[in-house]
């Protein structure tokens, strides 16, 4: 099994977190808020596309509003597999983080 990349992972968690509100703008804002860094549109959509191709995400068309220039939103939803993937990844992290020695740096 192949692991997700870090951006993919973050995007996937975000979609999970945002539930029914998970579309482009919201996802980007949330990730920017959480990471405190600038994320370009491409850096959101590329992971989204990949995740969708891998089957960890579903997408469906939402409503169009005037603010969007009449263009409809595309909402994303996490799938069963996506959830399983995240959980598996989390388990790996947990395993790695167990029994790590105390990092003591000498003051130089």
């Amino acid at each position, binding site marked *: 099994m192949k692991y997700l990349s870090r951006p993919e992972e973050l995007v996937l968690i975000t979609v999970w977190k945002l539930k029914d509100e998970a*579309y*482009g*703008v919201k996802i*980007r804002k949330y990730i920017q808020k959480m990471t405190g860094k600038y994320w*370009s*549109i*491409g850096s959101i*959509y590329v992971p989204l*596309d990949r995740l969708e191709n891998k089957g960890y995400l579903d*997408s469906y*068309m939402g409503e*169009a*509003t*005037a*603010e*969007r*220039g009449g*263009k*409809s*939103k*595309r909402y994303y939803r996490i799938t069963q597999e996506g959830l399983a993937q995240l959980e598996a990844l989390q388990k790996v992290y947990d395993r790695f983080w167990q029994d790590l020695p105390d990092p003591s740096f000498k003051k130089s």
Partner: protein
Amino acid sequence: MALQKQEKKFRSPVLGRFFLWILLNHKHPQSIMGDLEEQFHELAKHRGVLRAKLWYWLQIISAVPPYTKNAIYWGISMFFNNLKIVFRNIKKNKVYSFINIAGLSVGIACFILISLQVEDELSYDQFHEKADRIYRVVYEINRPGSLSNTAMTPAPLGPALLNDYPEVKNFTRLSFQDVFMLHGDKRFYEELCYADSRLFEVFTMPLVVGDPETALRDPYSLILTQEMARKYFGNQNPVGKTISINGQKDFQVTGILEAIPQNSHFHINCIAPFETLFEKQKGMIHYWGNINYYNYILLAEDADIKSLEDKMSQFSMKYIGGSFKELFGDDLDRVPSWYQFHFQPLESIHLHSHLSNEIEPNSDISLVVVFTAAALFILVIACINFMNLSTARSFTRAKEVGIRKVVGAKRNELIKQFLGESSVFVLISLFLALVLIFLFLPSFNALSGKELALFDLSAGAMVGFLAGIFVLVGGISGSYPAFLLSSFRPAAVLRGGVFAKNSTPLVRTFLVVFQFTISIMLIIGTFIIHDQMIFIQNKKLGFDQQNLVVIKDPFREVIPKYKAFKEELLKHPNVEAVSVSSGVPGMELSSTTVRPEGSEFKEAISMDVLLVDYNFAETMGIQMAEGRNFSRDFVSDRGRAFIINHSAAHTLGWEFPVGKKLEIVGGSQKGEVIGMVHDFHFNSLHHMIAPMMMVLVPVRAKYFVVKTGPGSVTKAMETIGQTWDRFAQGSPLDYSFMDNRLDSLYKSEHSLEKTLIYFSILALFIACLGLFGLASFAAEQRIKEIGIRKVLGASIPNLMFLLFKDYAKWVLLANIIAWPTAYLIMRKWLQNFAYRTDMELWGFILAGTLALFIATATMSFQTVRAALSNPAHNLRYE
């Protein structure tokens, strides 16, 4: 409403959206654009539209580098791959590639050549810096009994216009005169131009040496072109030296003129001051009755020529009416409508002016239109032939398309590939076309009398022009094959059964028929013109044109002493006869009105008059039909006896003209007809033989006619030259041979014949290309049919005939169309000649056979190959 406006304000920039739309490479572009729109809207609402816009553009710009990086990287690698495929294809199908490229390059070369010619025609007189403000004044005389539109105007016109109208900023006058120039042993006839020194202020005619303000200030100064200066002075400095004009007056060289470009409606080699023309009669420069000069004006920058012309309604009244009050008498108030001056824009003279007394013969705009149409036509035909040949090859490429599609090529990528492929062909052809032009431009120039050069255009214009051709030709010829090829469905193609359509496309057939029709017409035309030229050469002219030398004596220097001159010449064993006359064959004679003595005025007819010596008819070999020639035995023969020609007698209705009396209308001259000559062709065969009479007035002659023996002409010419120099007062010997003179009457026909030969070859070549495409298309299509026929026992000649008869019928159809059309056109052309050959059927048959033969040769390449091909190979089922 207000709300909507508000909403509109928060829309993202249209241009930005457009860029985004190009850059976005996503399966759901709408949702991404929607996202951006939403964020823009939010930003605009809370932080201002400007900031939102900035943000929006930043988003786009930040997306560009990765996008372009990708596009360039893959673009380049695909480009090289496609290029490789193109060259592989060219190598694989050498014949096809050769024919394709050859056809296209010939087409492009023709197009460029004709374009250069058209460009040249349109560029006339534009090299003058003030060209858009220079006008030539022309004269419309509309008096009862005298109607003319002439480019010539009176000398005082220019100064009067300058004086009367503030719109006229400047003027200059030109007058041309044939003179002979003498310096040391160099003697030549030249055309001298008399011009105001304002010439240099109006026109752009730079002087290499000398000051334009003073060069024409003193009387009898002279400006030469560099070429002329070299002719007379070699490598010496010409300034300050003198040239004798007409052996009468020395003119001093004061300046050297840069040669006038070929695309000018007049060409000047030497200029003298305008006032010098009137040195002998100073008052004539103010005389309104002498219409011999060209007036040009320079309009003020803000003036309008139309309003100037409107203001001039009383102009001719003031000057012409004023000068000739007594002459007009009661009709004085009609002068403004009788005499009118008009203005011609300088740049329009070459293509639009067809007045009498033009300085040089002008061209015509319709010629430019025809040329442009022909150029485009040739290019389009070449493109369509290219298209035909490429689509005919599509079958061999079908599998490649199938595989590419299976591997994942999208349709637009395939279109790009094939367009690129034809672009390579077009590029190669373009290059070859330039080489062709380089090779053929000299002979083209010789034919058209122009000085075209490929690099006349500025580099930018040239590149733009070539790029334009590239895009146009590539677009037209590449698009159809590209769309056709890319439309193949991979499954069908790879299975191997897609070409069920068994019909030759109608458009293609039409084209081939059309091209052959044109070719056959051109060939017929060439034959008939050639026939007519031979007819002209063999036509009995009524006099002996061989061994006749014509000497022109324009200033009558030798004519007064013609008897002595004649005797001197006759001493030479090779000179058989010498005579003088006022005209020689190949020129127009002056005519006069005559009537039978005592008859009504309405019976008067117009007759050409030839003033001759006693032995003119003998010398020329003109046969007497009746009566006698002029004789010294009759004193009354001097001026009071006429010899008329057959046509004159016929027009007058006289069966036996000898002894009848004629009088010249308006003069007191009367005389008796003493003889009649058989008709002879004085003018070219375009004209009917006009009524003519010969009168014995040798002192008013202008030409010597010398009959030399059949032997050495050079020896005789030497004697003639030496004798001439002893008698003449310095003017050079201006001689011509009669047969050359007559030949030059048909110069335009000769060059038409030559042009037609070139065009026939070209048209036939292009038509064959079309046919080749058609034949290969059909051969490819019927390859299985041929295979089966072969297996069943068809012989090779049998198969060849099967394929052959398909196209032969189109060429025959072309014949059926071409013959009557060519007949009608050529009949019209032959009507230019009063004396013409009959159109004979063999010319038509020969042209048709020739076309059919060449067509067969073209097709045989395909038919033989198809017929010889191995059926097992063709019928193999993969």
